[in-house]
C-alpha cells in the first residue's frame, strides 16, 4: 500500500508568508507538494467558513499563515485571525477534528528557510495523524 499523502489547504497572506513561499521557491528550497496554497490579502480575511469548508471537503489539515504580530500590512488582521482560530479550535474538535489539524503560524517575508522547514514538519505531523474523517465519506 502506498504511503498516505495528506492534503493540506494553506491560506497565506500576500505580504508575509506568501512572499516567504516565493523566496523558498526562488532559493530552490524544497518542501512537500501536499501543501495546497491559497494566496489571500491578509489572514484577517479568512472567514471561519473557509476553514470549515476545507475540512468538510476532506482536507487533512488547514494552515493559516501570516505576518508576525506587529508586522501586519493592515495593522491588525493577524490578531483577528488568531481569535478566529481560537474559536475554531473550540468548535471543530467537538465534531471529531483533532485540534492539530488546524494550524496558525507567523512566517515573515524573509523567512524562506523557516517556511520550508515548517511545511516539512507540518506535513510529517499530519501524515502521522492519518486521513481525516471527512475523506471519501458522504457528508451531508
Amino acid at each position, binding site marked *: 500500500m502506498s504511503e498516505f499523502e495528506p492534503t493540506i489547504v494553506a491560506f497565506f497572506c500576500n505580504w508575509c508568508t506568501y512572499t516567504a513561499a516565493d523566496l523558498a521557491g526562488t532559493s530552490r528550497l524544497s518542501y512537500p507538494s501536499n501543501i495546497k496554497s491559497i494566496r489571500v490579502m491578509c489572514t484577517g480575511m479568512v472567514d471561519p*467558513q473557509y476553514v*470549515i469548508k476545507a475540512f468538510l471537503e476532506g482536507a487533512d489539515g488547514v494552515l493559516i499563515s501570516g505576518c508576525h504580530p506587529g508586522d501586519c500590512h493592515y495593522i491588525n488582521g493577524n490578531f483577528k485571525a*488568531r*481569535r478566529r482560530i481560537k474559536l475554531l479550535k473550540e468548535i471543530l474538535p467537538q465534531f471529531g477534528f483533532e485540534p492539530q489539524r488546524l*494550524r496558525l*503560524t507567523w512566517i515573515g517575508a524573509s523567512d524562506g528557510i523557516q517556511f520550508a522547514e515548517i511545511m516539512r514538519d507540518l506535513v510529517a505531523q499530519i501524515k502521522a495523524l492519518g486521513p481525516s*474523517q471527512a475523506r471519501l465519506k458522504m457528508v451531508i
Partner: protein
Amino acid sequence: MAITAKINVTEQDVLGALRGFFEDILKTEYISAILVPQHLPMKNLVMPTLVAEPNQLNGIDPLAPAFPMNAAGIVSRLTRKPMGAKFAAVLRPCEIRAFVELVKLKQGRTEDVVLIGMDCLGVFQNKNYFQLVGQGSSESTVAFYESVLRGKSSKIGDIDLAPACMACEYPVAENADILIGLYGMDIDRSLLVQSRTENGEQILKQMNLPATDEPRGRQDVINALIKQRTTYRDDMFARTREAAENLEKMSTYFAACVNCYNCRVACPVCYCKECVFVTDVFNHDPSQYLRWARRKGIVKMPTDTLFYHITRLAHMSTACVGCGQCSNACPNDIPVMELFRTIAQGTQRAFDYEAGRSLEEDPPLSVFRENEFAEVVGIN
C-alpha cells in the same frame, strides 16, 4: 436608591394586576407605548403587541407558556433609529439577553426603551402550545402559572416545558430596568416590582406603589430552580456532545435537515441582512454538483447541510442565549438548540464571555488583544 415595591393582587387575578400595572406605566410621563404579549382575538394566539392606549391592554398575557418568537428582534426593529418617544418592553430574560447582544452588534439602541423583565416561568414548544390553547388561552395561562408558582409542576397534562427552558439557568431577568418578581411571592396577595437602573427608578417613582421588602424565601426558590435547571443542562450537554462527536454522528443528528434555514430566521442574534448561505455563493453551477458526485460517488441533496450548521456555530455561537427558537422553528424536530447551546458554552468560555451578561463586554470576535492565545500559534 433602588425601589422595591409590590403590585397588589385582588381576587387571585394576577393577569388583572399586571394589566393595571402596565396601564399605570403607560400613564406615566415619558412612556408613550408598551410592547407586551397579548392573546389576539384571532385564533387565541399570543403575540407581542405595541400598545399606545391604556384601554387596549385587555388581552395581555405575558405569563402564557407561549413563545412565538424571541421579541429581541422586535425591540431591535423598534430601537434601531430614534423613535421620537420612549416605550416600555415587557420581555422574558432570554429576550433581554438577546437584545443586549443585538445592541452590542449595533442592531438596536437602549436609549428609547425601558426594559421590563418578568420572572420567566418557561414556555412550551409552539406545537404543544397550539394544542393547549384549543381550550382557551387565558384559562390555560392561569392553569399554567398556578401550577408552576404553587410549586407543583410546569406540566399541563402530558405537556412539559420546551427543552430550552428546562435547561435555562436564567429564570430571572438580568439587565432589566424594572423587574417583576413572581417566584417566592404569595401570588394571591402581591407581585414584586424592583427598579434595577436609574431609568427604571424614575418611572417607578411616579407610580407610588406600596413599598415592600423582597420576601426572604424568594432567593431560595430561585436558587433551587437554577440548580435543577443546571443539572438538566449539564446532562443535556453530555448527551449532545456524545451524539455529535464525529462527522458520521453529526450527519445522523442533522439527517432530517432540509436546509430551510428556519433556525437562522428564528434566531434572535443571527442578524445579517443577507446570510451567505442564501446568496449565489451557494447557488452552485450544475456541473459542480456533478463533479462532487463523481468524486465521492454520492452526494446528499441539498448539499452543504453540515457546512451551514457548523458555519452558523462559528458565526453566532458566542452570542447564543439559548432561547430555543431554533428548535421551535425546525419543521423536522431536529434538536438544534441542544447542539448550539452545547457548543456555545465552549466558545463563550474560551473568550471568558457570556452572551447577554453585560452591555460593557465586547463581543469576542469584534476585539483582540496584542498578547493573547499564544497556545493557538505555531506547529508544536
